[in-house]
C-alpha cells in the first residue's frame, strides 16, 4: 500500500495535540497532513477547501460538535472518511458518531503507530472497529430488536462477524475462521455500519414527518 501519501485533516481544539498528531503521522512517511481545524465549523469549511481523504476527528469540540461536523462533512463529500479520535469512550457519543457516518473510532491513548495504521485502513475502505465499539453496536442492535422486531436487524452472519470483532479477532483471523475472504469480512462490517446509519436517517425522517403532521393539525 504505497504510492501517494494519504491526505489527512486533523480536527482538535488543542493546538498542542494537533501538532503532536501531525508529527506522528508525518514521521511515518505515508501521511500528509493537508489541513487542521480547531472546531466543528472550521472543520466543515476546511474539508471543503482541502478535500482530505481521511479526517481525524475529536468529538468534544466548541461551537459545532464533532458528531455534527462528521455528519455534514460526509453529507457534502461522501468519499471523505472520518476516523474519530476521542479522549473519552462515552458510549452515546461514540455511537452517535458512527451513526453520523464515522468509519471508526480510536481512543486518544492509542499508540501512534496504530493510529497511522488505522488511517491507512480507513482510507482503503476498511472500517476501524475496536472490540469495545463492536460490543456497543451489538447492544444497540439487540435493544432495537427487542423494542421493535420489525426494524431491520443484523443477519446471522453479520452478527457472527461482529461478535468475533468484539472478541478481539482481526479481519484476517475472522476470514480464516469463517472460510471467507478478508474482503467479505470488510463488506459485512461495512454493511453493519450502513445499517446503523440508515436507521439513524430513518429515525430523523420519522421525527420530521411527525413534526410536520403536528404542525399541519394546528
Amino acid at each position, binding site marked *: 500500500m504505497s504510492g501517494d501519501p494519504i491526505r489527512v485533516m486533523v480536527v482538535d481544539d488543542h493546538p498542542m495535540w494537533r501538532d503532536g498528531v501531525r508529527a506522528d503521522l508525518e514521521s511515518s512517511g505515508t501521511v500528509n497532513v493537508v489541513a487542521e481545524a480547531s472546531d466543528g465549523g472550521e472543520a466543515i469549511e476546511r474539508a471543503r477547501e482541502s478535500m482530505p481523504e481521511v479526517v481525524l476527528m475529536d468529538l468534544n469540540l466548541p461551537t459545532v460538535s464533532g458528531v455534527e461536523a462528521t455528519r455534514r462533512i460526509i453529507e457534502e463529500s461522501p468519499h471523505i472518511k472520518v476516523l474519530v479520535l476521542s479522549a473519552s*469512550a462515552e458510549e452515546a457519543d461514540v455511537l452517535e458518531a458512527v451513526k453520523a457516518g464515522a468509519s471508526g473510532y480510536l481512543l486518544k*491513548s492509542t499508540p501512534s503507530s496504530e493510529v497511522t495504521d488505522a488511517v491507512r485502513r480507513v482510507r482503503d475502505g476498511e472500517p476501524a472497529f475496536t472490540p469495545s465499539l463492536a460490543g456497543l453496536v451489538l447492544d444497540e442492535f439487540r435493544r432495537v430488536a427487542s423494542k421493535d422486531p420489525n426494524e431491520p436487524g443484523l443477519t446471522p452472519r453479520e452478527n457472527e462477524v461482529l461478535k468475533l470483532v468484539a472478541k478481539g479477532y482481526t479481519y484476517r*483471523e475472522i476470514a480464516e475462521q469463517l472460510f471467507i475472504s478478508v474482503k467479505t469480512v470488510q463488506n459485512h462490517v461495512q454493511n453493519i455500519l450502513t445499517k446503523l446509519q440508515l436507521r439513524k436517517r430513518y429515525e430523523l425522517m420519522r421525527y420530521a414527518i411527525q413534526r410536520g403532521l403536528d404542525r399541519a393539525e394546528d
Partner: protein
Amino acid sequence: MTITAPERSRRSLARGALLFRWIALGWMAILAASHAEPMRNSPLAWASIGAAGAWTAWLTIAGKSWSWRVLFFDLALCCWLVVCSGFVVPEHTIATRAFFATAYPASAALLWGVAHGAFAGLFAGLALSAALLGSRLANGVHLQDLSRTAWQSLGGSIVLYLVSGGATGIVSALLVRTSEEAQKATDALIVEREQAARLRERESLARQIHDSVLQALALVHKRGTELATQTPPPAAEVAKLAELAGEQEAALRSLILREPERAPAGQRSLREALEAISRSVDGVPVTVSAVGPIWLPRGKADELAAAVRESLANVAEHARASRAAVFAEEEGGDVMVSVRDDGVGFSYDEHALREQGKAGVLKSMKGRIEEMGGSMQIRPAPGGGTEVTFHLPSA
C-alpha cells in the same frame, strides 16, 4: 439462617395459638376430672388427653416448622378427640353434655390458618365439623333423630371451627403481606442509602483525582519548560514526565468513562467488574467488550470476574501474547464470557501445567464456575493463541 419479617409475624401469631392450646388442654383435663357421671370408657378418655398433652408439649419444644406431616397429624389427632368424646360420654347423652373436647380441637384449625391462610383454615374447620357429626354417630345418636336444639348446638360448634380456621388464616395472610411490604420498603431505603454512599465516595474520589491531576499538570508544565532549555533534553527525565502524565490520564479516564450505573439491589454490572479487572492486569494490554452492562447477582459477577482475572494472569505469565480481549454477553438466560489471547497457545495444557505445579490454578478456576452451575472450555484460538470460554446461567 436469618428469619424474614413475614416469618417473624407468622411465628408470633403461632405463639398466641400455642397459648390457646395449653389453656384448652387444661380446660379439657378439668372437665374430664370433674365429670359427674361415670364415663363409658375412661381409660380411652385419659389416653386421648395424655396424647394431646404430649403433642402440645412437643409442639411447644420442637414444633418450629409446620410441615404437612405435622399439620395432618395435628388435624387427625384433633378430629380423633372430637370423635372420641362420642365414645366416652354415656350413650345418647352427647347432645346435652358439655363434652370435654370442644375447645382443644379448634387449635388444629388455628394452626392450619396460621400456616397456610384462610382456605387451609377453613379446610381444617370442615374436617373437624365432619368429626363432630361422627361423634354423634359414635354416641349412638342417629342424625335424623336430632332435635332442633341439638342441631342448633351442633351448628354453633361447626361455625366456631370454621370461623377460627378462616379468621386466623385471614389475619395471618394480612400480617404476612403487611410485613412483606414493610420489608420491601426497608430494602428500598437501604438501596437508596447505598447509592448515596456510592455517590459520596465517587465525589471524594473525583476531588482526589482532580487534585492529583492539577499537581501533575503543574509539574509537567514546570519541568517541561526547564527540560526544553537543555540540549539535548535528558531522555530519562522526559520519559518520567510522560509516565506521570499517562498515570493521571488513566486515573481520570476510569472516573469519567461512565457514570456508575444504577444497580438493582444486590446486583453488579459484569461489564464494570471486567473493566476493573482489565485495568489491574500487568504485562499484557487487555480490551473489554460487553453487550450491555449485564446485571448479575453480586456474588456471581465477582466469581466470574475472579475466574477471568486468573485467565488473564495466566496469559500474562505464560502466553507471550501481544494482547488479550475479554468479551461478555448474555443471551437467553446464559452469560458467556470469553478470554482470548494471541500468544503461543497451549498455555492451558493440563499436562504442562501439572509439570509446573500449576494444575491447581486451572482446577480452581474450573471448579468455581462449575459450582455455580456453569462450564469452562479451552480451545486453541484461530490464528494462534488460546480462547477460554465461561458459560453461566444468569438467573
